[in-house]
C-alpha cells in the first residue's frame, strides 16, 4: 500500500485556489482523452508486431489517467517534458494522432519528420518538449524550461515526468537541488509503475516512499493514485498552484501500472499474470466510465460511442501512417543547425 500522503508544505494555494468543478462535457472529454490514448497504443502494438514500427516502443496502457489527468490541469501554454514513454503526453497535449503514428512508422509526415521515432515525439507549438531516451536526462532540461519561464516572467509552469527507475539518476538529484534552491516553477512527476524495466522498486531504491527524496531539498511532495483520474487532477492542481503562485517546485509520485512490458522488446517475465490481472481490475478508464454512469454524467451508450470513435481514430492514424511517404534520404542533412541571423552561416553544406 502507498505510504500516507505527506501534506504540501508552505502552500497558500489550497486556501486561495480550488480545482474548478468540471461540467459534464469536460468530464466526458477526460474519458475521451484516455480512451483515445488506449486505442492508439493498442494500434501501435499491432503495427509493431507487423514490423511497421522498429526500434524501441514503450506503451502506456494502464497509465492513461496519469498523462490525461496531470495535463488536464495545465494552461495551454504551460510546458510538458517527459521520457520515452511519451505517446500519451503528445496526444493529450493535442498532437494529431496521425502525425504520431506516422512518426512511429518513420514517415516524413511524422511529428519529428521521421527523425525521432517512438522515444522522441516533440510538439513545441503545443509546448511539448519531448520525448527523451536517456533515463533522467530530461529532468535537468525540464528544470531549465521552468528556469526560462521564470526568467521571462511568464507565470507559466513545467511538468517534468520520469519513471520510478529515473529517481536514482544523479541528474535528477542535481536538478531537484537547483529547482528548490532557485525556486523554479517545475513539478516533477514520478510515474511509478513499480517496475524499472525488469527491476522492482524494492530492488532499485533505498528509501520508501520515493517522495522522501524531496525532503532532502526542503521540497514539497505529494502522492496520488494514478488509477483515479480525479485524485491525479486534485493533487496535480495543488502542485501547479504552488508553482504558479509561489514559484516553488514539487515532487509528485503518482502510483500507476503498465499492463505491457517495459517496451515491445520485453516479454515481462518478471511479473506474474495474476499481478497484472489484479491491477487490470482497477483499470483507470473502466473506473472513470463507471463513475460517469453512476453519477449520471453520461450514458453507457454515449461512452461506448466515444470508445468506437477513438478506435476509428486509431485506425485512421494507422492508415495515414501506412500511406504516408518515406522521407527522402537527403533530408538526413536537414534539421541539424538552426539558420543564423546574427552572424554568417558557417555550415552552408548542412541546412536547417
Amino acid at each position: 500500500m502507498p505510504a500516507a500522503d505527506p501534506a504540501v508544505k508552505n502552500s497558500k494555494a489550497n486556501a486561495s485556489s480550488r480545482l474548478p468543478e468540471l461540467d459534464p462535457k469536460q468530464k466526458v472529454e477526460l474519458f475521451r482523452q484516455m480512451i483515445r490514448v488506449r486505442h492508439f497504443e493498442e494500434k501501435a502494438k499491432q503495427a509493431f508486431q507487423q514490423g511497421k514500427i522498429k526500434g524501441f516502443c514503450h506503451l502506456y496502457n494502464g497509465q492513461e489517467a496519469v498523462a490525461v489527468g496531470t495535463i488536464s490541469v495545465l494552461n495551454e501554454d504551460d510546458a510538458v517534458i517527459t521520457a520515452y514513454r511519451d505517446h500519451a503526453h503528445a496526444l493529450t497535449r493535442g498532437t494529431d494522432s496521425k502525425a504520431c503514428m506516422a512518426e512511429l512508422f518513420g514517415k516524413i509526415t511524422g511529428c519529428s519528420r521521421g527523425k525521432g521515432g517512438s522515444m522522441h515525439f516533440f510538439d513545441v507549438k503545443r509546448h511539448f518538449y519531448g520525448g527523451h531516451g536517456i533515463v533522467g536526462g530530461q529532468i535537468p532540461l525540464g528544470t531549465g524550461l521552468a528556469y526560462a519561464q521564470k526568467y521571462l516572467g511568464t507565470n507559466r509552469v513545467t511538468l517534468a515526468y520520469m519513471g520510478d527507475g529515473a529517481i536514482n539518476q544523479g541528474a535528477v538529484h542535481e536538478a531537484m537541488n537547483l529547482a528548490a534552491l532557485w525556486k523554479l516553477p517545475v513539478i516533477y512527476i514520478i510515474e511509478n509503475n513499480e517496475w524499472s524495466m525488469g527491476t522492482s522498486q524494492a530492488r532499485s531504491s533505498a528509501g520508501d516512499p520515493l517522495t522522501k527524496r524531496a525532503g532532502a531539498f526542503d521540497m514539497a511532495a505529494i502522492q496520488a493514485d494514478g488509477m483515479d483520474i480525479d485524485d491525479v487532477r486534485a493533487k496535480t492542481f495543488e502542485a501547479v498552484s504552488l508553482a504558479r503562485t509561489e514559484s516553488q517546485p514539487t515532487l509528485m509520485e503518482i502510483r500507476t501500472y503498465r499492463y505491457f512490458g517495459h517496451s515491445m522488446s520485453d516479454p515481462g517475465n518478471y511479473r506474474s499474470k495474476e499481478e497484472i490481472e489484479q491491477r487490470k481490475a482497477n483499470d483507470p478508464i473502466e473506473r472513470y466510465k463507471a463513475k460517469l454512469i453512476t453519477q449520471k454524467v453520461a450514458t453507457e451508450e454515449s461512452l461506448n460511442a466515444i470508445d468506437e470513435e477513438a478506435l476509428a481514430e486509431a485506425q485512421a492514424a494507422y492508415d495515414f501512417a501506412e500511406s504516408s511517404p518515406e522521407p527522402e534520404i537527403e533530408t538526413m542533412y536537414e534539421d541539424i543547425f538552426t539558420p543564423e541571423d546574427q552572424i554568417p552561416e558557417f555550415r552552408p553544406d548542412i541546412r536547417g
Partner: protein
Amino acid sequence: MSTLTYREALNEALSEEMERDDRVMLMGEEVAEYDGAYKVSKGLLKKFGPKRIIDTPISETGFTGLAIGAAMYGLRPVVEYMTWSFSLVCFDQIINNAAQVRYMSGGQLSVPIVFRGSSGGGLQVGATHSHTPENWYANVPGLTVITPAFPDDAKGLLKSAIRSNNPVCFIENEKLYGYKDEVPEGEYLTEIGKARVRREGSDLTIVSNSGSTHRALNAARTLEAEGISVEVIDLRTIKPLDFATIAESVTKTNRVLIVEENKPFAGWGAQVAYQIQRELFDDLDAPVHRLTSIDVPQPYNGRMEQAVLPNEERVVVAIKEVLA
C-alpha cells in the same frame, strides 16, 4: 588598437554581448561573487546583477541540462566550466541534448548555447584537470568547436559564438589567459569556421591551434635563424574546419606538420591529416607529419609533463624531419 590579455578580451566579449541582448546570461561555478575562478567574469556581477551572472552549485549535469532547457525555451545561456575537464561529468547533456534535440524533433527546437571554459596542460594540475577535449566534441554532429589562441580572436569568436543560434563548445586555454596582445577597438566579430595565417612562410606549413599555435610560432622564430621559413596556420575553429586555408598554404609549401596538444589516437590532427593526403596528395613532397601529446595520462611532475606536451623542442625536431 588596445592591448588586452586573453582573459580581458573574453571579459569584454561577455560584457558587450550581455549589454546587447537581455537573453544572454552566464552561469557556472564561482562566476559571480568570486569574479570567476580564472577571473574571466571579473566585474560582471557588479555590472549585470545576480539575475544575469549566476553562481551554480557543483552539479555540471544539473546546470548544463538546465541551461540547455533554458536555451530550448528562448534564452541564450553561456555556461562556464571551471575547466573543460569537468564537462566529462555532463557528457550526456552536451552530446545527447545540446547537439541533438533539434534533429530528434525534426527541426522544431533551437539550442543557442555557448559552453566555455579553460583547458589544456602545462600547469602540473594532473590527469583529471588537463584535458584538451576539442577532438571529442568535434566528433559530434551538431556541435561547433572553437579554440582561440590570441586575445583578438578570443573576443571576436566569443561574440560570434554567443550570437550563433547553434550550440558552441568554446574551448579556451588556461596558459593563455595572461597572454597580452593587440585587440581592435570598437565593435567587431570574428568569423567562425575561418582559420588564420599567423606567420607567412615558404618551406613548410604548420597547422595548429590554441596553446600549440604559440609553440609552433616560437619554433618557427627559432628556425628562422637557420634559414628555414615556416608558415603557421592557427585554425581558431576546429569544426567546421577551414580546409581552404590549409589547401592554399600546402599547395604553396608542399610540406605540412600538424601540431596539436590532443592525445594522438583520433586527435583533431588525424582528421586534418586524412583530408590533406586525400585532397592534396599531388601537392605533397613529403608525407603529412603530426606532432601530438604523448599517449599517456597527464603526469604531475613538471619535466615529465613538458615532455608529454608537443613542446617547442619537439616541434623543431619534427619540422626538420619533414624537411629532411
